């Protein structure tokens, strides 16, 4: 299954936990510090650096780009650290979250409530995943270095559905 951005949440209902999907289009990186700053902006009702509605958020902090390469290695980081911030991000309309590892029950509930899904990219496969990225640019918080928000243009970026819209979890039922 190939998904193209922006994501219309209606397409997500057909995806099942354990299914491999590919994403082509725009995804945004955000990890610990960026989540803290993003949710602060949301709470203060200020303008966000990118449109969260229908967006795909990737928990990742790339390695520096080597000359001649598009991007450095860029695999997922462990997701549970983003749990405290995730309901706020989902309430703003994010459609797909990508990371690795399991989520808290309150995050799973928030995913269902918002008709959003959580997917895993392969942890420790940063070089392979970098080959799916066609362009990278900084969107916000450049001073955070690897923790900045980057806009990635990806082609057939491979992920596996972890939490689907029927409440299944591939980590719990496999």
């Amino acid at each position, binding site marked *: 299954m190939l998904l193209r951005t922006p994501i219309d949440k209606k397409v997500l209902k057909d995806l099942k936990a354990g299914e491999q999907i590919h994403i082509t289009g725009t995804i945004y990186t955000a990890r610990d510090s960026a989540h803290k700053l993003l949710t602060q902006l949301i709470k203060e009702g200020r303008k966000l650096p990118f449109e969260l509605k229908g967006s795909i958020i990737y928990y990742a902090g*790339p390695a520096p780009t080597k000359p001649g390469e598009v991007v450095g290695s860029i695999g997922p980081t462990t997701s549970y650290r983003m749990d405290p911030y995730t309901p706020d991000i989902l309430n703003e309309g994010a459609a797909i979250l990508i990371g690795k590892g*399991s989520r808290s029950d309150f995050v799973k509930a928030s995913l269902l409530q918002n008709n959003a899904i959580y997917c895993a990219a392969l942890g420790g496969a940063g070089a392979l995943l970098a080959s799916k990225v066609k362009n990278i640019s900084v969107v916000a918080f450049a001073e955070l270095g690897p923790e900045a928000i980057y806009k990635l243009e990806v082609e057939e970026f491979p992920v596996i559905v972890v939490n689907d819209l029927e409440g299944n979890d591939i980590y719990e039922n496999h």
Partner: protein
Amino acid sequence: MKKIKFEDLVKVIRDSVIEINCVPSPELISKYNQSIENEDNILSKQVLLSLKENALIAKERMIPICQDTGTAVFFIEYGTEINIDGGFIYDAIYEGVRLGYQEGYLRKSIVDNPLNRKNTGNNLPPIIHTKLIEGENLNIVVLAKGAGSENMSSLKMMTPSDGIEGIKNFVLETVVKAGPNPCPPITVGVGVGSNFEGVALLAKKALVKDLFETVEDDLIMEIEADLKMKLNELNIGPQGFGGKTSVFDVAVMMEPCHIASMPVAVNINCHVIRHKKIIF
């Protein structure tokens, strides 16, 4: 007195941190191959094939196998008859790490303070453990240690009555709790004995046990084999999607301890095993 040039030390540290991060060891590739062969679960087999492909792409392009190029951790055995010509050994380690992370396009993942969290921008400081030894040898073990697996590690001050079963249960509990988070198949380093700070260090050393000279002990080998079997029966599997390969290896190291204590530490490493030993 044996002289080692400061610049030579800097260069070898620089080259080593780049190499361990970008070039998969033959040992790692053979572990991928063995588990690919062993795995029936289609998704898990495919995951392992991708992990191997990733390691080969990294080597070909000389880019990091994983973007988390880790904290640089050093175990130094420093001979009392060694003289570093032109500087202090820790300065050489720092400079080697700084150059390697900069010139190797490795990610800088260290913040200056756990609360302010400002990136130091050069992956400094490394973590250095030094042991004095007699003679003219300088042995340096270097690890690139990622945080996803480090965060899943655990330490417990157990008591003598907990015994072997207590130790095994604590290891199992820690790995079950970690689940998919530390990027399985993992390596599990277990320290038993010493004291509070000593046992954590033992568990870290156990992750690179093959690089240290240890006396083989039947009881330890039995505990390692039994734990490996039990952990691989948990069906966590590669990346947590289920399967037969939850752990690549379990290594246990023990040291004497106080009559009242039985400290146990479990240090977890992800599937990307990145370490080497440098001998001068």
